[in-house]
């Protein structure tokens, strides 16, 4: 579990020493009623379809994941010595809950799942993604997305 007090001292110190950019105050965007919301997933697990190019270390680009994805096409090229891919290997929903979003859509708990979802590489310095993130924000709006969930790994 990721409580720093439960991790080895050296590893916890390493995590705390990672540089974090100052993004200033977060803008507050009013969200729609969940039952009307169109929801997209933004993942930083380095996910992509088998037919896509793998992510390189430090990549600042993204891969598209279609809303009608067949999970047998999905793979993950973000690796780290300090987490493993066994959770993903057993069940991709544990880090990319698209099937669950579809279920919530079918139940009427959300308006809809987006047509496209987006995946970035996890270990990249986030400041390098500023430009791509802006592009993705525009693409989300074009897809009429009204709520985005951000899921790290």
């Amino acid at each position, binding site marked *: *579990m990721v409580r*720093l007090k439960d*991790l080895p001292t050296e590893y916890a110190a390493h995590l705390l020493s990672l540089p974090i950019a100052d993004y200033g105050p977060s803008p507050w965007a009013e969200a729609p009623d969940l039952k009307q919301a169109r929801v997209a997933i933004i993942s930083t697990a380095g996910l992509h379809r088998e037919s896509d190019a793998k992510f390189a270390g430090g990549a600042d680009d993204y891969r598209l994941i279609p809303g009608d994805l067949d999970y047998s096409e999905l793979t*993950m090229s973000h690796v780290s010595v300090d987490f493993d*891919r066994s959770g993903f290997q057993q069940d991709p929903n544990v880090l990319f809950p698209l099937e669950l979003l579809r279920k919530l859509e079918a139940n009427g708990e959300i308006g809809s799942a987006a047509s496209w979802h987006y995946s970035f590489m996890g270990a990249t310095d986030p400041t390098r993604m500023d430009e791509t993130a802006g592009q993705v924000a525009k693409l989300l709006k074009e897809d009429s997305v009204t709520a*985005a*969930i951000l*899921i790290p790994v």
Partner: protein
Amino acid sequence: MPTAAISLIREHTEQINPSRSLWVPFELGRPLGAPNNPEFQLGVLRSLLGLFEKESGPVIEDYPHDSPVTEESDAAWSCVLPLPPLESTSTPAEALKQSLLQEVGSLAPWYAESVRRMGRSTFGLSGLTADSMPEIAAFMVDVASGEDPDWPPGLPEQNARTIRYMADDLKAYYMEAANEQPGSSAPGGERMWTWLYHETRLGQVFYDLRDQLAAEHAEKTVANGGERPPGPPPPNPIPTRYANRPEPAAR
């Protein structure tokens, strides 16, 4: 665009201070908590989506439930395949290589079954396919014992990063095979790591590889007048919290 984020390291989220965050007490690599447990995952997802109903922020909420996969629930899992013996008639490195190849062979049917059932695999970062497992395994033992072997054929590049990717492919092969073995459930992350690093020949090779590459790097540093040599640090396939080798009796 309204956003709601899962937070894995609360201290990081407190610094970044995004508009809506749900901190979860789960292992890295499992932000929804537990594989193959849609009810638990839905609980996390509903809490995350529930943050969109907040009228002001920034807000960081703590998810109140630990993952149902615990050390206790996970302790019962064990690999059904025995640890292949080390033959005493050859050199230690050759004995380890033969034992590792035997281990790889014994996992092959379960890896193949995993690919058949899931229709996918996380093997392939090195650019090779799982058909090259024997060549990758033998290469790693040779490097770990200080030799300078030929690289397995078919690699798109040959450098320190390639060794790291081959180590990740070996891990993928082992973990996907372990997931598939008969039993009530697949191992959780901690149990998987204990098996991989402490109970397999591959784990032994990974510790040898780490130590050999670190020693070579130290020699280069001395030869470079005490300055770190150019290039990336040596690949290390061992996670920080498994840094200590297991006691010999554990193997």
